[in-house]
C-alpha cells in the first residue's frame, strides 16, 4: 500500500513532473504547512470539534454548555484563576495534578508521532511502542528490589525507552530494507505488542503477579523506584516529575530536528527522499533512526506512566489504552512542532481528566457517557485537522500567487 500523495504543486511542476507524488508523502505535505495559519487554525479546529460534540450532547437531551462547564471545572485549570480559593482551590489543585499526569505521556507520544511526520513517516505505532516501554518499565521496576532508588529509576526508564526504540525500529528497518509501508507495519506491531502484554500479565503469564495469582496484573513497582512527587500528596497521586521529563524531551525534539545533522537528514528525507539520497544521505538508515527516536519517546511515555502513577500493568490496561491514537491527534493538532505538541497534549489531558467519571456531576451530564463524548471529540479534532491541512494549503497557494506576480516563465508546464 502506498501512502503517497502529490506534493502541493504549483503550475511550475505540472508539466515537468510526469508522475507527481513520487517521493512526497502526505506526511510531508502536513509538515510543509507548519506555521501556516499560525495558532488560529488549530484553535478553530478545536472549537469546531467541541461544537459538533456539543451537538451530540444536545441531540441526546443534555445541556452542552453546562456539560462543558462541568468538564472544565474537572480539569483543574481553574486553579490558574486567582479568584479560585479555599476548598475549590484545593480540589482544583488535585485535578490539575491529574491533568498534568495525563498530559505527560501525551506529550511524549505526540512527539513520537510528530518526529516521524517530519521525516515523512506516519507512526501509528505509538501505542505498541508505549506498551513495550510500559512492559519493560514494570518488569525492571518490580525486580531488583535492593537497588538504590535513583539508579533503579534510571535503569528502568532507559531500558523502557530503548525497548520502545527497538520495537519502532522494526518498522523503520522493514521500510528501509523491503519498502514495507510503516502504516501497516506499525499497526501490526501495535497488536502484536498488545497480545504480548496480555500474554505476559495474563493468568499464568511469565510476568503475572506473584501475589495475586487470580488477577491478570503485573507485580507492583518497588516503592523506591517510584518517580518522586513534587506537587501534592504522593499518597493521593500527586504530580510526579515525569512532566519535566516530557518537557525536556520536547526541547530535545526541537533541537535535534532543527539544529542537528540527523534532524537535517530526517527533514530532507521527509520532504524529498530522492533528493536526500542524491545528496548522499542514506534514506534507509534515516528511516531506522527516525523510527528509533520515535520509539524512544513513546517508550519513555510508558515508563513515566508506570513509574509515576500506575505502578503496575493489568492486561486490561494494555487492551483499552488508546494513547497511540491520542498521540496522533496531539501531533496533528500541534502541527508537529514541540510547543504545539505540548499545548495539544495539555488540551487532551485536560479533556480526559475533565470527563473522568468521578469528576462529573450526574445531574449535569451522565458521567458514564463522558468518556465516549471525549472519544467523539478527539475523533472530530483529528477529522477536522485532516481537512485543515487542505485549508492551510489553499491559503498558502493564494499567498504565494499574490506574492509572486511574475512567476517562472521558464520552467512552465506547458511544452
Amino acid at each position, binding site marked *: 500500500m502506498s501512502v503517497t500523495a502529490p506534493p502541493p504543486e504549483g503550475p511550475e511542476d*505540472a508539466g515537468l513532473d510526469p508522475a507527481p507524488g513520487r517521493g512526497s508523502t502526505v506526511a510531508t505535505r502536513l*509538515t510543509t504547512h507548519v506555521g501556516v495559519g499560525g495558532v488560529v487554525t488549530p484553535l478553530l479546529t478545536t472549537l469546531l470539534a467541541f461544537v459538533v460534540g456539543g451537538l451530540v450532547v444536545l441531540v441526546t437531551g443534555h445541556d452542552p454548555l453546562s456539560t462543558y462547564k462541568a468538564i472544565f471545572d474537572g480539569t483543574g485549570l481553574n486553579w490558574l484563576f486567582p479568584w479560585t480559593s479555599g476548598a475549590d482551590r484545593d480540589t482544583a489543585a488535585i485535578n490539575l495534578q491529574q491533568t498534568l499526569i495525563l498530559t505527560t505521556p501525551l506529550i511524549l507520544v505526540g512527539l513520537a508521532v510528530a518526529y516521524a511526520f517530519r521525516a515523512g513517516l506516519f507512526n501509528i505505532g505509538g501505542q505498541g511502542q508505549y506498551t513495550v516501554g510500559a512492559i519493560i518499565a514494570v518488569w525492571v521496576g518490580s525486580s531488583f528490589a535492593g537497588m538504590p532508588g535513583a539508579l533503579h529509576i534510571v535503569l528502568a526508564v532507559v531500558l523502557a525507552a530503548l525497548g520502545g526504540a527497538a520495537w519502532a525500529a522494526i518498522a523503520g528497518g522493514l521500510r528501509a530494507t523491503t519498502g514495507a509501508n510503516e502504516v501497516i507495519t506499525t499497526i501490526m506491531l501495535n497488536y502484536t505488542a498488545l497480545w504480548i502484554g496480555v500474554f505476559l500479565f495474563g493468568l499464568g503469564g511469565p510476568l503475572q503477579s506473584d501475589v495475586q495469582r487470580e488477577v491478570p496484573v503485573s507485580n507492583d513497582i518497588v516503592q523506591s523506584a517510584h518517580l518522586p512527587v513534587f506537587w501534592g500528596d504522593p499518597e493521593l497521586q500527586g504530580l510526579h516529575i515525569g512532566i519535566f521529563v516530557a518537557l525536556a524531551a520536547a526541547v530535545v525534539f526541537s533541537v535535534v530536528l532543527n*539544529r542537528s545533522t540527523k534532524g*537535517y537528514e530526517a527533514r530532507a528525507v521527509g520532504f*524529498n527522499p530522492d533528493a536526500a539520497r542524491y545528496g*548522499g544521505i542514506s534514506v534507509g538508515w534515516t528511516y531506522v533512526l527516525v523510527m528509533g527516536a520515535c520509539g524512544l519517546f513513546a517508550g519513555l511515555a510508558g515508563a513515566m506512566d508506570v513509574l509515576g502513577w500506575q505502578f503496575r500493568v493489568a492486561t486490561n490496561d494494555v487492551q483499552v489504552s488508546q494513547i497511540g491514537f491520542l498521540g496522533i491527534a496531539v501531533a496533528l493538532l500541534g502541527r508537529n512542532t514541540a510547543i504545539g505538541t505540548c499545548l495539544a497534549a495539555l488540551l487532551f489531558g485536560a479533556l480526559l481528566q475533565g470527563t473522568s467519571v468521578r469528576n462529573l456531576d450526574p445531574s449535569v451530564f451522565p458521567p458514564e457517557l463522558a468518556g465516549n463524548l471525549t472519544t467523539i471529540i478527539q475523533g472530530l479534532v483529528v477529522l477536522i485537522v485532516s481537512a485543515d491541512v487542505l485549508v492551510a494549503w489553499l491559503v498558502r497557494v493564494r499567498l504565494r500567487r499574490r506574492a509572486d506576480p511574475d512567476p*517562472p516563465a521558464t520552467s512552465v508546464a506547458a511544452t
Partner: protein
Amino acid sequence: MADDHQHRESGAPAPDSQGGRAAPGAQAPAAAGSPALELRGITKAFGALKANDGVDFTLRRGEIHALLGENGAGKSTLMNVVYGMLTPDAGEIRVGGEVVRVGSPRRAMDLGIGMVFQHFMLIPVMTVAENVVLGSEPRRGGLLDQRGAEQRVQELSDRFGLAVDPSAVVEDITVGQQQRVEILRALDRGAEVLVLDEPTAVLTAQETAELVGVLRRLRDQGTSIVFISHKLREVLDVADRVTVLRRGRTVGTVETAGADEASLARLMVGREVLLRVDKQPSEPREPLLEVEDLHVTDDRGLHAVRGLSLTVRGGEIVAVAGVDGNGQSELIDAVAGLRAPTSGTVRVAGRELTGADARTVRSAGVGHIAEDRQRRGLVLDFSLAENLALRDYRESARFGLLRPGRMLARAKRLLQEFDVRGGDPGTPARSLSGGNQQKLVIAREIGGNPEVLIAAQPTRGLDVGAIEFVHRRLVAERDAGRAILLVSLELEEVRALADRILVVFEGRVVGELPPSASEEEIGLLMTGSGPGTVQAA
C-alpha cells in the same frame, strides 16, 4: 455509455468517422468546407502565468499539422484544452465548424478528438485489449466481454496496420508498442482528430520511422493529425503545415513545403541564431573520470548499460548523446553512486569508486547536476541555505549540530556568485523560478569544487537567458580544469558545448564524433546503424 458501446460491438470504429475515412484521399464534399478543428483566441493562465495567450490554430481535414515550440511555449497546455483536460479562461473551440465546449475528455472523444499523451495514459498491469476498450467496454450478459475486446483490438490493429498483441500486458511491451496502444485507443473511439504530444521523445529511430508511416497512412485515410514537437527536422519531415508557438502566443503558420530549419528556428525562438557558445579549443589534461566496461540494470532488472566505457579528462566536456532510454540515466546513476553497477569499474581521479554510495562519490570530488531538479536536485520545501548545504552539511557541523551562521554566510556568497534571484537564504526553494532553481543546483554542485561534474540535461525546461548562463558556466568550469560529462537529449546543445561527442545506443558507446559533426551523422549513429561504428575507448 450504454449506447456508445452498442455500435462498437461490431468492432468497428464509430460510424460517424466513416465520412472522412471511407474514401482514402478523396474528401467528402461537405467536409471540405470547414476545418476539422479551429481554435480562436485560446487563453489559459496558471496563476499569473499565461501559458496560452490568445492562441489561434486551424487544423484542416486530412492534414498532419505540427505544433512547434520550445519547452514551455504552451503546446501541451493548448492541446490539453482541446482534449478537455483543462478549461480555457477565454477563447472558442470549433469542431467541424461548430463552436463547442469540450470540458471533459469524454466530451472530446464524443466530438471525435483523440489524444496520445507524452506520458502514456495506460494502466501498466492490464492487457492491451483492456487498455484500449477501457471506458467503452464490450459487454455480454452484464459481464465484460474479454474475447470481444481482444477481437475488436485485433481488427483495429489489422485495419490500421498497428501491430500489437491484444492479450499482452502493457508493462511487458516496448515503449513503441505502448504508443500504438494509445493510438489504437483513440481510433477505437472514432477519432477524426488525433493529437500526439511529443510522440517521438521516447522512441528509437526505427520506431519513429514506423510512427511516421502510420501517421501518413492515417492521414491518407482521412484523419486529421496534430503533431506536437520541438524538433525542427522532424517537423519538416512529417508535417504538411506548421504552427509555431512562442511564449504562449501563435507566431505563425507555414507550409512545410518551402520552409527550412533556419526559418522555423527563427519563428520558434524569435531570433536568428540558435545556440552558439563562445569557447576556446579545449586543453585536455589527465583523465579524471574513467568508466570501463560498465554494466548496469534498470529498475525493472533489465540490462540498461551493457559494457559502456568512456574517459573524461580534466578541461574537456564530453557529451553523451542518444535517444532517451538508451542507458543514459542508469549510467549517470552508476557514476554518481546512486545505483550499483553489476560489473565494470568507475574511477575518479584514479581512485576506484565502483559501487560506492553517493556520499563517498561526492566527497571523492564528483558534482552532479541532476536531470530533474525538482524531484531530485532540490528539496523544494527547504530554504535556499538548507539546499545549498545538502552536499556538505556534515563538514560544517560540530558535535552533530549544524552551524546556521556558517550555512547562511556560505549561502549568501553562493547566491551572489551564481546570480540566483528571487529569494534570500531563508526563502524556500519552491518559490524560485525554474531557471533560478537550476542556478541553485549548479551553485551547490560547483560550489563543492568537484573534479568531475556530471551535467544531466542541464538546461531542460529553461528559457534562453538561463540556457546561456548555464552553458557559459559549464564552459568556464571546463576551462578551470574540471572534467565535465554532459548528458543531453538536445543535439544542438551537445554540438554547441561538447569537445567530444559519444553516441550511445542500447547501453553502449557506438561511436565518437567531433562537435563539428552534422546532426545527420550523430542522428544516424543514434539509431545504432551508423556506418563505421567504432567502439570508443
